[in-house]
Every structure is written in structure tokens, then in C-alpha cells.
């Protein structure tokens, strides 16, 4: 009780800090210098229609690489954590009852569609809302669907891991290529910017976003698979 | 023999062990020697005069007769004016007054103290008990004749002798010393075997060296 009271008191203090921020906050009427630069120059600099994408993939590409790394790291650690606790002998696990025909067929039907949607989302990331992360998540949802419908399904870790690592490695290579061929690490201008608004435009952005999509999809899938394998017997 | 006088084995700090024989290791075993007087007679006479005029009594009351010594220090008798004084340590005394009866147990202490005095040294037997046992003539635990154990120079008879008698006895002793006859220490050394035999006869638990330096 005292503890709760103390915590509430502290949060009131934090609330006061936040209130201070609120009081000091006035919404900008105009874009600030940075945002204005992006608004004015994105198209010319990167050839991307989606300014957010341009920022994510190019201007602040290092953040995004870090972001991807976070996912990679999480996946690796989750695998590490869970591997340590996984029972050695899968045979000892009691098999749950098989999924019904309806579920199996339905999921088989849906999965490719979902994958397609995912690919669409990340391939068009530089043009429309969406991008590698969103697309990757959609990809992973297909895996989730399959796992839910058939918990016994065994996914090849190897494939996931190769996709995950390879896409990441190529991402880094592209970044390095930016240093060598263009203005700096992760500069998208290693490829021609192309026509503004076209699918194959904006230099390396679609490539990177594709890699991100694949990687994110693979990471999520890897995490989901790792988690599903720890499912305890009933 | 007392436990602390028995042989024992001790370990040195460096680990070696060896035997300790207390009587041998703690006490000097040399025998007393007869001491010659000075070469020139006149010198010896001077010395004897000095010795006689400077009698230092060991403050050791062996028996009831010691009570008669105290008055000598009082204004009434004032023995100091005769060159007599009392010393608390045998090393510095040269006159041993055996004051009254002497039990066997005390005899041992008396012998030790006597031997620790430096020569020339004198013994005065005070009271009848030192002469023939006196009223303790048939006691199993007192000695009868002091002269059997120590070389006595003067006996002062009486039971008790009065302080005046003591003073007279001291005067007699002085005369003896001046005459060069106060050689008790030498007699003791000459007849050492005899004295020791007598002493050991009565002292059953003899646990000291033959001569106590």
C-alpha cells in the first residue's frame, strides 16, 4: 500500500514533468527547417514519393539498420533463451490433435495471398504508405496463420535463418556500396533514381525495403517458430 | 624431590629438544674455599677491627628469641652506637643470630642464608635452645646443638637472654674477631663434609646444592 502510494506520488512527479512539457508545447504553424528540407528536397534527392520512407531508408538509414538489427538481435536472443530451455527430445512431446481439414485448406489458400500482400506493401514502400516493416509483418502473419492452424508443422529454421542473415548482410553491403559509390553509408543513389513515382525508382530504396521486408518477415517468423516450439505439453 | 627440581625435557624455539637438570643448571656447584687472611698482620688487624666494629646482622628471626633483638634498636639499648645494625639481605650481612630454637624446617633456610652470606661471617647462638635444645630437648623436630650444623662463634645462654646479655655477647664476639679468631667461615669450609653430613642427617628432604652461593 505504501509502495503504491509512493509510486503514485512519483508518477505525479513525472506527470508534473510531462505537464511542464505540455505547457511549453505549442504546435508549429510551419514546418521546421529539417522538415522543410525534406518536404522540398526529398523528391530531388532520393526520388521517393513517400517522404517518410525516404527518411527511414535513406536520410536516417542508420537508424533503420539499427532497427533491423534490433529485430535480428531479438530473434537471436529469443532463440538463445528458448533454446536453453527447450527439451532435448521432441519425441517426448505429446502431439496435440491434428487440425481439421477446413483449417488446413483455408490456411493454404490464404497464405500465398497474404505473402503477396506483404510483398506488395514493401515493394511500394517508397510510393505509398507502408514499407518493409509493415510488409515484413504481413509476411510473418502468414507464418503465424500456418502455425496456428497446424501447430505440428515443422518450419525449416535453416531457410528462415538464411533469409534473415542474407538479407541483413546484403543490406549492410548496400550501405557500404553507398560509401564507395555515392555520398555515404546507405546512400540510395548507388542506383539511378529513375522516374519519380515509378515502382522501380528512388535508387536503392525499393531494394533496401525489400530486404527489410524479407528480413523482418524472417525475424518475426523465426521468433514465432521459436516460441511455438516451446509450447508446453498439456 | 620437588617437581620443579626434577629433570625435564624442553623444546627450544628452533625445534631441538634437550634436557634441563635444574639443580645443576640453575645453581652454582662450587665448594666453599678456605680464605686466607691478608698478608700483613697489621693490615689484617685493621680489617678485623673494622669487622668487629661493623657487625651487620641478618634480619632473620629463626625462633622466639628474635623478640629480644627488637629492643636493641630502641633508645633504651641502641645497639647502633656499637656499630651494630641490621641488614635485610644475607649478601650484605656478616652476623647471623640464631634466635632461639631452630626447627628442622627452619634449619634448611638458615643453612641457605648462612651460605649466602659473604665471609668472614659469624654465628651467634641465642638462648639455651641453640646450646642443647633447651625446653625442646626432646622434640623430634628441633635441632639440639647448633654447633653441629653451623660454626658458632658465641653462645648467649638464657631462656630468654635479656637484651643486655645480647649486647654482652656481641661485645664478646667483637673481642673474638679482633683477636683474629672469628674464622667461622673457614672452619665451615674446612669441615664442610662433616657439617654437611650432620645437616643432611636431620634434613630428610634435601633438595638444594651442597653449598648455596
Amino acid at each position: 500500500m505504501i509502495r503504491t502510494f509512493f509510486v503514485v506520488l512519483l508518477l505525479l512527479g513525472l506527470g508534473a514533468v510531462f505537464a511542464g512539457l505540455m505547457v511549453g508545447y505549442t504546435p508549429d504553424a510551419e514546418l521546421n527547417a529539417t522538415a522543410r528540407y525534406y518536404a522540398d528536397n526529398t523528391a530531388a534527392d532520393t526520388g521517393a514519393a513517400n517522404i517518410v520512407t525516404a527518411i527511414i531508408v535513406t536520410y536516417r538509414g542508420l537508424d533503420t539498420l539499427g532497427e533491423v538489427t534490433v529485430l535480428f538481435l531479438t530473434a537471436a536472443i529469443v532463440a538463445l533463451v528458448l533454446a536453453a530451455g527447450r527439451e532435448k527430445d521432441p519425441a517426448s512431446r505429446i502431439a496435440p490433435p491434428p487440425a481439421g481439414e477446413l483449417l488446413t485448406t483455408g490456411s493454404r489458400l490464404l497464405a500465398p495471398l497474404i505473402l503477396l500482400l506483404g510483398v506488395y506493401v514493401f515493394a511500394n514502400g517508397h510510393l505509398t504508405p507502408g514499407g518493409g516493416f509493415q510488409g515484413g509483418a504481413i509476411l510473418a502473419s502468414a507464418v503465424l496463420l500456418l502455425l496456428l492452424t497446424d501447430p505440428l508443422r515443422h518450419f525449416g529454421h535453416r531457410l528462415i535463418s538464411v533469409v534473415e542473415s542474407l538479407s541483413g548482410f546484403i543490406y549492410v553491403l548496400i550501405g557500404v556500396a553507398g560509401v564507395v559509390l555515392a555520398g555515404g553509408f546507405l546512400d540510395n543513389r548507388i542506383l539511378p533514381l529513375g522516374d519519380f513515382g515509378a515502382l522501380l525508382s528512388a535508387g536503392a530504396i525499393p531494394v533496401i525495403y525489400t530486404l527489410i521486408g524479407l528480413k523482418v518477415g524472417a525475424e518475426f517468423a523465426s521468433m514465432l517458430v521459436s516460441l511455438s516450439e516451446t509450447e508446453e505439453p498439456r | 624431590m620437588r617437581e620443579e627440581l626434577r629433570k625435564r625435557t624442553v623444546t627450544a624455539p628452533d625445534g631441538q629438544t634437550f634436557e634441563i637438570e635444574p639443580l645443576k643448571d640453575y645453581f652454582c656447584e662450587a665448594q666453599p674455599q678456605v680464605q686466607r687472611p691478608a698478608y700483613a698482620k697489621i693490615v689484617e688487624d685493621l680489617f678485623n677491627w673494622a669487622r668487629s666494629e661493623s657487625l651487620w646482622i641478618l634480619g632473620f628471626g629463626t625462633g622466639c628469641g628474635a623478640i629480644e633483638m627488637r629492643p636493641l634498636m630502641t633508645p633504651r639499648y641502641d645497639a647502633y652506637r656499637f656499630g651494630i645494625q641490621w641488614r635485610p639481605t644475607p649478601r650484605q650481612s656478616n652476623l647471623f643470630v640464631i634466635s632461639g630454637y631452630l626447627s628442622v624446617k627452619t634449619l634448611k633456610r638458615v643453612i641457605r642464608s648462612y651460605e649466602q652470606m659473604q665471609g668472614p661471617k659469624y654465628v651467634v647462638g641465642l638462648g639455651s635452645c641453640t646450646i642443647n635444645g633447651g625446653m625442646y630437648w626432646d622434640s623430634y623436630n628441633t635441632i639440639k646443638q647448633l654447633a653441629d650444623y653451623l660454626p658458632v662463634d658465641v653462645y648467649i645462654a638464657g631462656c630468654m637472654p635479656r637484651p643486655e646479655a645480647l649486647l654482652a655477647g656481641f661485645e664478646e664476639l667483637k673481642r673474638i674477631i679482633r683477636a683474629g679468631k672469628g674464622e667461622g667461615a673457614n672452619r665451615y669450609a674446612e669441615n664442610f663434609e662433616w657439617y654437611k653430613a650432620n645437616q643432611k642427617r636431620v634434613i630428610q628432604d634435601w633438595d638444594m646444592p651442597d653449598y648455596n652461593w
Partner: protein
Amino acid sequence: MTLVTLAIATGFALVLIGLLGALTDRNILRMIVAFTIANTGVNLVLIGVGMLPGRTAPILDEAVSVAQAAARIVDPVPQALVLTAIVIGLGVTALMLAYALRLHQTRHSLDIRTFTELKW
């Protein structure tokens, strides 16, 4: 109160609620959920701060030309940041969940108070 401040206020409120839950609930799963709420609140604040009233999404298309962009779109930077923040939050949450799972496997408890063998 404008929409922007409302969004930010809501975000802060979510943060506080989330923290309250995270700091008072003993169950680690519920703590994780509470942190998710707080993270959502932070994300809301992020978006809110980048908001300019009456403007549109920062995507250049037929509706918003490059020339007008500066006057028509909202600040794109917080939008980019929030994506990163979400992903990172997700990563941390996943990690915490994995920890929770392992803790439960090894210690058979989800009470945060039971993991105090390291102290002082």
C-alpha cells in the same frame, strides 16, 4: 484543446497508466503488458508532436506536389522516428516475454518478488 494537445495528453496519460501498472503489479507478464501500454503512449506523443493541424500525410502524389509540399504536409520526421520506436519497443517486449517464459520455466513463478536472490 486542439487535437494535437489532446493526442499528446492522451499519450502522456497512457505512459503514466502504463508505468503505474508496471511499477505496482507483481506479475511480470502484466508488467510487460503495462510497459507496452506505456510505449504506445510514447508513440502517441511522438506522432502528436509531429502533427501540424490541418495538414496531410507526407506523401508526394497527385494531391500534394513537390512545390506545395512544405505548406501541405505534416512533419515527416516524427513519423519516421515512431516507426523505429515501435520496432524497438517490439524487440524489447519480445525479449522480455522470452525472459518471462524462461523465468517461469526455471522458477515456476511469475511474481517479480521471487527473483530477489541477488541483492545488497
